[in-house]
């Protein structure tokens, strides 16, 4: 079982308590009605789906119930780091860029 560090509970907790909640840092448009269909499609449906590091929203649904963000490697399934919702996307990842 994976252990995921919840930034609100401040400790690692078993993955059974968590739920994945899609890609992170997708800004909701301020005026959706004025968007072209193409732009709306980009915002609503198109995700980066990388092979490697991805920024995701997770929710500690059966714990503190809070949403937070996680950096995960889609190849190894390793959680690189987690941080609170609303915090900026970390530019430098632990263990990267050496």
């Amino acid at each position, binding site marked *: 079982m994976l252990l995921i560090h919840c930034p609100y509970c401040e400790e690692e907790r*078993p993955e059974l*308590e968590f739920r994945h909640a899609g890609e992170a840092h997708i800004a909701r448009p301020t005026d959706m009605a004025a968007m072209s269909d193409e732009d709306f499609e980009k915002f609503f449906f198109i995700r980066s789906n990388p092979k490697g590091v991805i920024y995701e929203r997770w929710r500690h649904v*059966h*714990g503190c119930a809070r949403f937070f963000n996680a950096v995960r490697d889609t190849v190894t399934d390793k959680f690189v780091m987690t941080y609170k919702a609303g915090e900026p996307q970390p530019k430098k990842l632990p263990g990267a860029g050496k």
Partner: protein
Amino acid sequence: MAKAAAKRSASAAASIERHPALAGGEVTTAGVRLAVLPPAERISLRAPEASITALTRALGVSLPKAPKTSAAKAGRTALWLGPDEWLVIDEAGGDPLADCAGVKGLHSAVGISHRNVAISVSGRQAADTINAGCPQDLSLAAFPVGAASRTVLGKVEIVLLRTQEDTFRVECWRSFSDYVLAFLTKAATDAA
């Protein structure tokens, strides 16, 4: 017809009696004792930092700020569930909902007394029994006396509170209580 209906409801009212889910339920194995706890008053409390002092004063028990902790005073326990969320359980016949009503500061207090059923798991193998369906580390180092957490047991969500070294209080939703007691009973048998 209306008259007959009125008569029926009047006679129904006369015989209303509350039958709490699983009342009196008890299971004992070599290492564990499970007991369905008596009804208690409970509130689900949400409040920002600024209201905590006033709510603490009104409730008479402090609202813990550290994750996975609880505070207890005079039969009333406040369990940290999230950064601005607590479960308050009153086993002394008080009314925490009424106590919060006078607080002017922003907060949300919802009465959930009968939404939950509590089961006590005690004995030498209490932690092993719960760990049959709960993935958290329940060693005394990781989950000491007073530790409290929302988590899972089997396929349902529970709130777990360690009241003594060998005693836990398992709070579950009423409609899941049958499952939880059956699950714990099986686990207690296996643990023994």
